[in-house]
């Protein structure tokens, strides 16, 4: 649990780098033992990574995993961690909230007036994301095992000249240029920083994180604030969480990134994507590949 000691890192930067050395021996060093449920997230790079690992234990093609079972496993894992008072990084909790929601959608028959995304659609999108991540993992493995220059294949050891590809007799890369600029500006910037205090995770933060974890909200009404509250706040902090969340949500609505609906007093709050949801996120992906 080293990634999650202390306060939950904002925006889930928790998975910073402690697992860097693990590339060579891959999963062997990662600390998840299904039987004993030893809780150790240090080896995982975020919730998708953990989910992928859990999915692999199902030992079937990712397109045919039981997303329900997977969600269960994940939630059990998170609950255990919470019971033994391990402070989890926020992104793991946000994923838990979403999976709890997904689970409820999968288990409870669809109601007539309910126009949210179907559980199956949500499950499919999760399975797709896992499959895609796994595909990139495999690609990375294939790539790194190729004959690499300087390890398996070698260049001329005693070059006689370096042809200048560009006319210019000066050599500098864009990277050099940007490094020079950034460090110059950094040096001259006043390095006095006050770190924002945040005892409660606002739901707006959680939502942004959620977008990262499971993609955009879609055009359907979704009621997952319940789940968010459950996973993101201690009972003691719930009131402040609701207050700050509500303020933050209104802000998002004002910005046009979110729409809200509540059918009556004390009824659940439904959310869906606002008109300007995608702005500044650039997460379209339509040109990918």
């Amino acid at each position, binding site marked *: 649990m080293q990634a999650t000691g202390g306060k939950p890192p904002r925006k889930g930067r928790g*998975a*910073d*780098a402690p697992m*860097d050395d693990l590339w060579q021996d891959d999963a062997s060093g990662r600390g998840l033992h*299904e039987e004993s449920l030893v809780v150790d997230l240090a080896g995982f*790079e975020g919730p*998708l*990574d953990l989910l992928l690992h859990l999915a692999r*234990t*199902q030992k079937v093609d990712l397109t045919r995993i*039981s*997303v329900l*079972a997977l969600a*269960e496993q994940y939630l059990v894992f998170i609950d255990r961690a919470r019971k033994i008072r391990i402070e989890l990084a926020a*992104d793991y909790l946000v994923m838990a909230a979403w999976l709890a929601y997904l689970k*409820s959608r*999968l288990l409870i028959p669809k109601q007539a007036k309910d126009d*949210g995304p179907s559980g199956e*659609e949500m*499950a*499919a*999108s999760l*399975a*797709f*994301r896992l*499959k*895609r*991540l796994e595909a*990139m993992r495999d*690609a*990375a493995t294939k*790539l790194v095992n*190729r004959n*690499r220059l*300087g*390890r398996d*294949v*070698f*260049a*001329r050891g005693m*070059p*006689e*000249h*370096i*042809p200048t*590809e560009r006319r210019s007799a000066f050599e500098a*890369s864009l990277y050099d240029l940007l490094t020079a600029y950034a460090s110059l500006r950094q040096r001259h910037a006043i390095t006095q920083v006050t770190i924002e205090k945040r005892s409660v995770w606002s739901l707006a933060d959680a939502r942004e994180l959620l977008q*990262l974890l499971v*993609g955009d909200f879609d055009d359907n009404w979704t*009621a997952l604030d*319940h789940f968010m*509250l459950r996973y993101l706040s201690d009972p003691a902090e719930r009131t402040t969480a609701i207050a700050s969340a509500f303020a933050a949500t209104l802000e998002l609505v004002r910005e046009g990134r979110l729409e809200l609906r509540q059918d009556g007093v*004390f009824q*659940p709050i439904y959310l869906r994507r606002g008109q300007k949801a*995608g702005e500044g996120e*650039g997460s379209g*992906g339509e*040109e*990918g*590949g």
Partner: protein
Amino acid sequence: MGAKRVAEDVGASDENATVVDPRRLYEATRIAEALVFASAGPVSSAYIAERLPRGVDVLHVMRELKAFYAGRGVNLLQIEDSWAFRTAPDMSFVIRTEETEVRKVSRAALEVLSIIAYHQPVTRAEIEDIRGVQTSKGTLDVLMEAGWVRLRGRRRSPGRPVTFGTTRDFLDHFGLEELRDLPGLDELKGTGLLSGRIPSNFQIPMPLGEDELAEDEDPLTQLDLEELGLLTPGGKADE
């Protein structure tokens, strides 16, 4: 030994018009050979062409040279539009010494690198969307410093985010002629995993039927059900 014969063969089988006499072609291959051999990095076709006798097709020359070195201890490789001599892969154990060191790449960095390679041009937000985590500071920095990743431009979309792509050095380092040679690329394209959108033929995983439990799945307990009952979308807040 073979060189002369090859040059003659070339003269005879040349189709690229400009009926080149064998000796001129042989001189051209010598020049190209010297140019590429002298350099540690890849040398572009344009650079070589400028230095060849007039009327000699550079690609024709390079193909000959490549064939000539095939199977030898040193091979001629094409990297995009450039050429480089590299030792044959099966020679690696002879040449490698204790001092031989390759840049160590973290698992995270490698993952980001392959996402960039397979999805380029790709924005940082898209990379994070695929990995489901924020890219830790320094990861992209390391890849750019290694000279494998570069800024390509900006996406024509709101916010105009910067896009990333790979470099020629990346191809050179991983022994790829071009991006199309990325392992498994066609297959990945075929399955729609690179499109960013769920393909229509992507099988929607249905939850297992009520009675069948997966091997590693526990039945729901009364407690679970209660809990879930409280958590229906229509349910009351637990306060």
